[in-house]
């Protein structure tokens, strides 16, 4: 399967600031997604990152708070804007449609652990 990296791996940020998280894949993929995992909870889909067009957001998530870019088939960014302590979570990117695999199966990056003070 593809190798997925995320930067930064962790960060501590001040309230009111923004952080951009990068997701890089070592091969072209069909689909990229962004998830949030709040402390002690499971994963929740934030949005599907669409290559060359606006991301598709899930209910409860909006573009102004979580702008997403996907300029090509191997890279995406998620920005967490105007952060508050409630945004403290692990943010994970996932990919589907790597060479030789089904587009149904998602593979996850290592995650970015964000703490907002």
């Amino acid at each position, binding site marked *: *399967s593809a190798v*997925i990296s995320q930067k930064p791996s962790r960060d501590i940020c001040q309230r009111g600031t923004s952080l951009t998280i990068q997701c890089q894949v070592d091969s072209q993929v069909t*689909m990229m*997604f962004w998830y949030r995992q709040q402390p002690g*909870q*499971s*994963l*929740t*889909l934030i949005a*599907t990152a669409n290559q060359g067009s606006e991301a598709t957001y*899930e209910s409860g998530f909006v573009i102004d708070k979580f702008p997403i870019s996907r300029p090509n088939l191997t890279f995406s960014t998620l920005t967490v804007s105007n952060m508050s302590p409630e945004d403290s979570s692990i943010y*994970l990117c*996932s990919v*589907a449609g790597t060479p030789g695999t*089904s*587009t*149904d*199966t*998602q*593979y*996850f*990056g*290592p*995650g970015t*652990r964000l703490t907002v003070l």
Partner: protein
Amino acid sequence: EDQVTQSPEALRLQEGESSSLNCSYTVSGLRGLFWYRQDPGKGPEFLFTLYSAGEEKEKERLKATLTKKESFLHITAPKPEDSATYLCAVQASSYKLIFGSGTRLLVRP
């Protein structure tokens, strides 16, 4: 509303003591059911995809099965390195994965 419930929330086993984890789901039009393993501080690691009732998949000490309402992850003769959180997720009409809250497994030597 699509929903996934996993039980138990936590499970402690002795090395070699086999057991099963449960994943019950309610979804309109199951596209697939997925099992992942997540170690602390890491992203979920893909284990299995099941598509239809009666399907089974195996990998080392793990075996996943699927019925129309639930899936089981059977762990045979577990080892301490099997300790992790096991996540179940369902995929309905879109590519979205809906995750359960996970089962934290601890295998003691």
